[in-house]
């Protein structure tokens, strides 16, 4: 006689713990993203070898005209003229070496933080607080030289190439906005190491640039000391915060620069050039 019985378990579902498969998937995805990252970095660097500095400055000429139209709406003042001439003065040292007659495009942006940024195409943006709050021209020159170091070493162009390639590839493999929001910052944390490497490269360039301009490197550490005082936050001794920062720790940067100057027998002391824009009232 027929006796009903239940079918055995585990036919349509797995008894395996879901974490086991998940961990395998995470490791596989990590390796996959790491491989992509290495390819993007290599391709980004290759792209900058194919494009000369003159070409990079030239390609953005049209965009530059547009930007200048926007900038002309803003009334230029003393600090704009000062920074324009300082950047031109520094850049003139390198024009022959990099076979270009084109200029960098400089703009000042209102901000309470002393800072500067270099975008692809030779767009240098300097915050007005950097100009107004520096006692010496040497301090501002170091920051401009640092940004110029990024430009000469093609960091903004590399980054642009890498972001473009990674965005296109992740879209092609079907990663949606959500996945990209997670993958992007996670990869970002682990690529900070490369960012810090670029910062060191730009720092060393800036020191040499300062030496070429003034015949000594005094003032190389003024900006670091100023931001340390103004931010009231030193991440120098915290290795965990250091890991999450795109810039090396402040004290470490100063020490590396000092050692580099000593190694090259560059004068650590010399005559400082006062900043004509500086006023005590400008300090926050």
């Amino acid at each position, binding site marked *: 006689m027929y006796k*009903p019985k239940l079918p055995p378990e585990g036919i349509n*579902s*797995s008894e395996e713990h879901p*974490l086991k498969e998940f961990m395998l*998937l995470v490791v596989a*995805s990590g390796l996959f993203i790491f491989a992509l990252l290495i390819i993007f970095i290599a391709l980004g660097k290759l792209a900058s070898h194919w494009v000369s500095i003159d070409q990079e400055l030239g390609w953005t000429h049209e965009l530059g005209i547009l930007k200048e139209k926007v900038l002309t709406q803003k009334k230029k003042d003393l600090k704009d003229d000062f920074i324009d001439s300082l950047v031109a003065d520094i850049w003139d040292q390198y024009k022959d070496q990099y076979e270009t007659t084109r200029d960098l495009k400089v703009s000042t942006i209102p901000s309470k933080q002393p800072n500067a940024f270099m975008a692809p195409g030779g767009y240098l943006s300097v915050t007005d607080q950097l100009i107004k709050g520096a006692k010496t021209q040497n301090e501002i020159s170091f920051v401009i030289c640092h940004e110029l170091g990024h430009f000469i070493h093609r960091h903004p162009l590399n980054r642009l190439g890498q972001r473009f390639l990674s965005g296109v590839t992740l879209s092609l493999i079907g990663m949606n906005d959500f996945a990209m929001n997670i993958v992007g910052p996670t990869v970002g*944390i682990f690529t900070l190491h490369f960012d810090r490497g670029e910062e060191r490269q730009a720092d060393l360039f800036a020191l040499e640039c300062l030496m070429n301009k003034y015949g000594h490197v005094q003032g190389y550490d003024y900006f670091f000391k100023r931001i340390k005082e103004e931010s009231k936050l030193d991440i120098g001794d915290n290795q965990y915060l250091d890991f999450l920062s795109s810039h090396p720790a402040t004290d470490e940067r100063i020490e590396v620069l000092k050692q580099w100057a000593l190694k090259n027998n560059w004068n650590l002391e010399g005559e400082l050039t006062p900043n004509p824009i500086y006023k005590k009232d400008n300090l926050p």
Partner: protein
Amino acid sequence: MAQIIIFFTLLACGLVFGRHIEQKHYRSIKWREKRLIGMPIVTGRWQEEITPDQEGVFVHGSVVVASDYFKTVASSLKSVFGGRLQNYEALLDRGRREAILRMKEQANKQGVQKIINLRFETSTVGRAASGKGFLPCVEIHCYATGLIDRPNV
């Protein structure tokens, strides 16, 4: 950074609570399946087997099941490489068995002795139906003919 912390928190919640609910549901399913094992179900129409002293009634059961955060993320990762989506298999297995059990419980109340012509329908519901939703959500509906013996009819 905050986005990453939120993501991993949701992932851990999905794993812990999702697994707890799944295990609890499976225990309930197994217990109810044993209780209702005496009611046979077939997928055939069995028209020729139906005798004049049997009454046919419509019986059905439906359930809506949603994936948890962990299952969805794990399955999204798996879809990059391909292979069995084990997390969704368990979800749909629970859904199908729950729908059958609900149908059997309804049939039991109506005095049905056996169920014939069993059919399944599935459809995505909620935001998942429009392809915009992140968490998949599916309705599983099963329906059949229940046969009730009425010797005096």
